[in-house]
């Protein structure tokens, strides 16, 4: 049962880092009682991590738990955070972000999530294309590649999934290189800049992930 809960939690991602909260070390503890009460405690790299991202992760973790057959009640608690109380109470009450931060928030977080999904698509494009370019694939060949014709890999699957999450073309016939806003195929002349953008986006996400993991290690170092 506890394994089921951890598997479910591994589908919950930090929306900005695009990594599972389980591999990021954000799950501090996880217990399931015999009668199906799941309790999860989450922790973040700093006391001041942005509450909108924190809220998304706590809410997604809650949703993941209650979807598990056999889990009767779910409790997700974010610890050591300046907005812990508001987030924990808001998620427990299924209240939504705006209601949980009365007077301080003006919109739910779908837009934020989509914005970072688009970044994940760009970063994924860099991951998929870089080895191809190193192997000598030309820009003209890249433009012509479809998802179905590109070499299969875990990175490609992930890119396809993020595109599907956004409602962008993700079937085998869809071009490998698309505009993450519109879904339109990238023109040949725009390829170099598009790939540069993909690369800087990935650099940003990676730098962020490495800073977060460094801070988390420091904050929760044993002893």
């Amino acid at each position, binding site marked *: 049962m506890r394994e089921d809960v951890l598997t479910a939690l591994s589908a919950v991602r930090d929306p*900005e880092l695009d990594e599972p909260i389980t591999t990021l070390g954000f799950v501090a503890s996880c217990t399931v009682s015999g009668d199906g009460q799941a309790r999860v405690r989450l922790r973040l790299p700093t006391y001041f991590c942005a509450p909108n991202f924190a809220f998304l992760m706590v809410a997604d973790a809650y949703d993941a738990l209650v979807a598990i057959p056999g889990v009767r009640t779910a409790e997700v608690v974010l610890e050591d955070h300046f907005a812990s109380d508001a987030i924990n109470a808001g998620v427990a009450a299924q209240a939504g972000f705006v209601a949980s931060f009365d*007077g301080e928030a003006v919109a739910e977080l779908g837009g934020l999530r989509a914005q970072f999904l688009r970044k994940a698509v760009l970063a994924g494009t860099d991951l998929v294309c870089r080895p191809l370019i190193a192997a000598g694939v030309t820009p003209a060949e890249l433009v012509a590649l479809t998802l179905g014709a590109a070499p299969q890999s875990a990175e490609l699957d992930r890119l396809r999934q993020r595109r599907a999450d956004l409602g962008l073309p993700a079937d085998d016939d869809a071009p490998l290189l698309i505009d993450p806003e519109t879904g339109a195929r990238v023109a040949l002349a725009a390829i170099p800049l598009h790939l540069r953008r993909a690369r*800087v986006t990935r*650099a940003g996400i990676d*730098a962020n992930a490495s*800073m977060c993991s460094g801070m988390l290690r420091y904050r929760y170092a044993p002893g």
Partner: protein
Amino acid sequence: MYEKDGEKYFIVDTHMHYWNAAPDNWVPGAEQYAKGWIECFHAYQSLGPKETHWPIDKFQKYSEDDLMKDVFEDGHVDVAIFQPTDLKEWYKEGFNTTERNAALGDKHPGMFIANTRFDPRDSDAGLEELRRNVERYGARGVKLYTAEWNNGSRGYKLSDPAAYRFLEKAQELGIKNIHVHKGPTIWPLDKDAFDVSDVDHAATDFPELNFIIEHVGLPRIDDFCYMATQEPNVYAGLSVVTGALMHARPKFFARVMGELLFWVGEDKMTFGSDYGIWEPKWQVEGLVDWQMPDDEQFADYQKLTTATKKKILGLNAAKLYDIKVPAEFLVPVQPSEPASKDDAQLVAGQ
């Protein structure tokens, strides 16, 4: 001044602090924020070399002697620029105020430039305070903290009409440089500064002001880079970039530097140690010794020349602040370089 292999570097530390975050300065009732804030900073210090880590009590309140030694004696810095952050909701006297900085600057003439700050939510009283600070301290720059808490509000944007009033006033008073903290996300909620579009607006509408984006929007350098390529008056402030990445994450540092050199360029990058988070010594020495790795994954990034390093470590900032730099530190201006207004001013001033 720092000299290595016969090359002399004029060092301007464009982003440093003299704060008091000790318990004696915590606002009753807000202790958890005051404590959480400084401990968060202290965690950042852990990303520097181990021998430069301080115990928390020194980190909360370091002395004037510590600062003078770390920054000037050991740290190679020629001119240091104070960037204040008030945070008066949590710190009784303020965390790192214009007044505290300027008082230290007065004791050591010629070594510091004291910038001030403003907050558009302070309205007319804030405008008056800005005028007073500019007159009293000769500030030519401001540090803006768009996520600062103020009377129930947890942030503002540079594109807000109230902010425009302040930017207009600042320009009228002779302010040239607007340092904006855009970086590691901490708070607040929907107004979270996860993008830099507000700087984009302001930079377009105030072409005579320079916008130095501290921490280059890290971790969201992509947003920053797209914006900076479009706006000629936007600069990359490297505080946190060197401190948090150069030692702890050298490969990511290389990638971030490679991207900045490509999108922003070596003429628009400024060094800042973010002291007391990190000491300048290892950052200055590290940058002078640093080179883009030969590794295949960095192959299409630009290598750094000595001139690149001299510009980043001090000459670019000297231009922004009209600091007179002795000729021995300058780099020859190539006639083939595209002439910009700033270049013309520097050449004319020599």
